């Protein structure tokens, strides 16, 4: 087997009396789509946040491409080409769609204006943003200059997904990227994920939507009570098996538990 | 109709409120249209500068001003004089005093000296073992503050070192300085603090009478109101009543109404025929006088009783 892109072991995170991650392991391999499934509150968001530096774990070790990392902020992760779609989206409500899409990597005008006066090329950013939304089938966004807070729930999620997909170079974490999306828009996101995978960029997908998971995932990480319960191959198990494992209705066979 | 402006330091201090009332009365009597201005707090140079500018713009003939900063206002006042206005400083002189055409003021240092001399005489032999608390205005040590404080100490016979600095003295009789913001709550707190440092304090200098009233409350709460002398400066009517009531031992009375009415007269004369007022002999300002008010007169320091004071007090 190839070397994992991400390898985390023994991660622990506690908040006062509440345990969010309980000695969990995690692996992501090159070029795969890894789905993470589990009950609400199982700790899925917590573990991916620990991987990308959005929370700092109390214990445990994280290796990225074999090198130990100690991210103190998601910016460190981003600088390595890791993009994240957070469950709460992490958009700046009062800024426009284009501004949100480009935070931290704005396009500047050509020539003097851009070089010395550092002027932004707003038309270029707006055109790009509109293109990306259209790719996602979000045809209801009437003005690309709308502040994000005036968008509908699904439109917002579309902005976050488009941003991550456009800029990732190492891997992407998507925390329930289709939760608020409609049928058509969800389909586009799944296509987009396949495209990204085809570009050789692995994806971590957290989702409660079993048909989606079984459609796109190469491997499924089942999370339960703060730790990885098992990893399954979607070709070997059915959706109802996966659901049974994650809700505690069935014990997974010993050979796949981790 | 002749226009004139009165610019006071603040509109919250009764001293300036009375000055304004006096000026408005005088203006009405002399047919002068008086506009009044005030800073927002002691030291508000910006507002006073703006007020002078507005006066110039409004075509007034003269300005009466209590400069909130005797140096900082000089440039704009010079502008006003260049524009042909008569500028008279009230209560506080400019540095140098000839920045204005004339100054009608109390000698704040003298006011301090009077209460210092009185306290020294009153204590007699005990003066050598006095324990003195000094309740000043605030941390920024404006001129009124250091002049009264240092005047008092000099009158009491203490080496004041730098006459523009508060608290640089090293006489062991001084227990300490604290600030009051010139209000009774500040006076009470400052007195409590100094009593904590030395409960034997027997002489208290205060920047003004409200601070003195607060200091008295602190002494009363500590059961020491009888053994301690409190002296102050201002001569507001409540202060004079406090002399009668035994709260304050002596206070130096100033005459804001006089300053104001003199000022108005001067502007009126200037508007009529261009004459400018003269200073008191030997001084670089026109002294509107200070009177010591006390019900326990001592030899060598002329004084008025509180009863006489009540007829002259200004608030």
């Amino acid at each position: 087997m190839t070397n994992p892109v991400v390898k985390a072991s023994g991660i622990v995170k506690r908040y006062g009396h509440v345990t969010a991650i309980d000695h969990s392991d995690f692996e992501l391999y090159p070029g795969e789509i890894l789905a993470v499934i589990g009950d609400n509150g199982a700790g899925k968001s917590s573990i991916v946040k620990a991987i990308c530096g959005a929370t700092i774990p109390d214990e445990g070790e994280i290796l990225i491409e074999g090198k130990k990392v100690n991210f103190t902020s998601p910016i460190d992760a981003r600088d390595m080409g890791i993009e994240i779609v957070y469950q709460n989206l992490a958009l700046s409500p009062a800024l426009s769609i284009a501004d949100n899409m480009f935070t931290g990597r704005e396009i500047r005008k050509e020539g003097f204006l851009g070089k010395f006066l550092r002027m932004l090329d707003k038309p270029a950013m707006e055109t790009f943003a509109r293109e990306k939304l259209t790719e996602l089938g979000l045809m209801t966004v009437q003005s690309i200059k709308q502040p994000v807070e005036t968008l509908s729930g699904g439109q917002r999620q579309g902005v976050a997904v488009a941003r991550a997909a456009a800029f990732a170079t190492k891997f992407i974490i998507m925390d329930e990227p289709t939760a608020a999306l409609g049928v058509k828009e969800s389909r586009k996101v799944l296509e987009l994920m396949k495209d990204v995978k085809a570009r050789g960029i692995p994806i971590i997908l957290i989702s409660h939507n079993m048909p989606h998971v079984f459609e796109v995932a190469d491997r499924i990480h089942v999370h339960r009570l703060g730790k990885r319960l098992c990893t399954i191959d979607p070709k070997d198990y059915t959706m109802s098996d996966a659901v049974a494992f994650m809700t505690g209705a069935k014990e997974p066979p010993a050979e796949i538990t981790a | 109709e002749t226009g004139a402006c009165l610019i006071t330091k603040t509109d919250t201090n009764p001293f300036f409120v009375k000055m304004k009332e006096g000026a408005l009365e005088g203006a009405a009597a002399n047919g002068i249209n008086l506009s009044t201005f005030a800073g927002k707090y002691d030291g508000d140079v910006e507002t006073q500068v703006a007020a002078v500018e507005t006066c110039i713009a409004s075509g007034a003939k003269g300005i009466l001003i209590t400069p909130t900063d005797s140096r900082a206002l000089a440039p704009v006042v010079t502008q006003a004089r260049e524009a042909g206005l008569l500028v008279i400083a009230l209560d506080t002189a400019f540095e140098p005093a000839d920045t204005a055409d004339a100054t009608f003021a109390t000698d704040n240092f003298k006011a301090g000296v009077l209460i210092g001399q009185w306290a020294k005489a009153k204590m007699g032999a005990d003066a050598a073992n006095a324990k003195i608390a000094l309740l000043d205005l605030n941390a920024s040590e404006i001129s009124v503050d250091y002049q009264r404080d240092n005047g008092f100490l000099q009158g009491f016979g203490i080496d004041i070192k730098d006459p523009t600095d508060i608290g640089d003295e090293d006489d062991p009789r001084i227990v300490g300085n604290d600030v009051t913001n010139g209000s009774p709550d500040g006076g009470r707190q400052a007195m409590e603090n100094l009593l904590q440092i030395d409960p034997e304090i027997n002489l208290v200098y205060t920047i003004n009478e409200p601070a003195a009233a607060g200091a008295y409350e602190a002494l009363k709460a500590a059961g020491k109101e009888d053994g301690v002398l409190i002296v102050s400066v201002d001569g507001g009517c409540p202060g004079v009543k406090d002399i009668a009531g035994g709260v304050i031992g002596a206070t130096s009375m100033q005459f804001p109404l006089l300053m104001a009415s003199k000022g108005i007269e001067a502007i009126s004369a200037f508007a009529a025929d261009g004459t400018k007022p003269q200073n008191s002999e030997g001084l670089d300002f026109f002294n509107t006088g200070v009177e010591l008010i006390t019900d326990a007169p001592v030899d060598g320091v002329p004084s008025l009783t509180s009863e006489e004071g009540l007829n002259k007090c200004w608030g």
Partner: protein
Amino acid sequence: MSDATDKASEGQSFEQNLDQSAKEVAQFKVKNTSLLNRIQHLLHNNPTLVPVIVLVISLIAFGFIAGSKFFSAFNLSLILQQVSIIGILAAAQSLIIITAGIDLSVAAIMVLMSVVMGNLAVFMGVPSGLAILTGMAGGVGAGLMNGWFITKIKLPPFITTLGTWSIFYALLLWLSGAQSIRGQDIDANASFLKFFGQSFNIGGARITFSAILMVLVFVVLWYMLNKTAWGRHVYAIGDDKEAAEMSGIRTDRTLLSVYGLAGLVCAFAGWASIGRVGSISPQSFYEGNLDSITAVVIGGISLFGGRGSIMGALFGALIVGVFRSGLRLSGVDVLWQVFAIGWLIIIAVAIDQWIRRVSA
């Protein structure tokens, strides 16, 4: 129709084993319960302890620096007494800051109401009790005026109270003619106005009624905020006003009641200040607003609203009082007292933040 089977009311096929899923609330064994760990948990669950700790530390520190004079029962009770007026104001301020507001007019309301009480009782011959009641009603009215602008005209609290501060301040100067009312006149005509100036001794400590009033105000407000539905609503509004409105809280009505109550507390502070200061001076407590806000923030109440216990403000006020007293007794020059208090504010809050972070 290919998806006909999905219409079965039994749900999608992969849900078939759901009825066997686990049914207990999740629990985790937490192994290390070292002392440090337990202290962390304690602080985590009782954030009000943090200002208490800062208070204790600063008491001890000044005990060393300023010596035994500082640590005497008398001096400690004196600090309590000196803090009482600003403390009561801080209680009013806390109420408002918890709703994510800020009130720059608390001190002006307080002084205005003390002037109203004094004018009525001393100069106009109104019985003291009635004068005080009028002052209280005036305080409520002034608070409601703030609240009205904020809820009905939707003005930001900062700008509203900046405006009403000027208004109240002008009114109090006008009513008082910028002149104070003398202590003796109050004693002669309306000594009840000085009720809170009384005190009694216990073992060297002198406890004034105003200090007791302060503690009482805090306890009552704490009860209201933490044990009643009204209090929960106040926190919810400060937390997220829109969410509060959507989840069924009458935010405008609650905010009005908060401002009215804060005005009442300010009027109480005004009454107590007459006893404390001994006279009624329009010049007093000019910086009371900033002082009260300082106490609130040092006490760990978030300026963004919705977080923090009102008791924190009590300890915050005490911390400031201890610093002020300790510095004076250590003989620090006024100028350097200003300097030191600047640093101490920063350091006190830094310690608070640090402890909170460690325990998070």
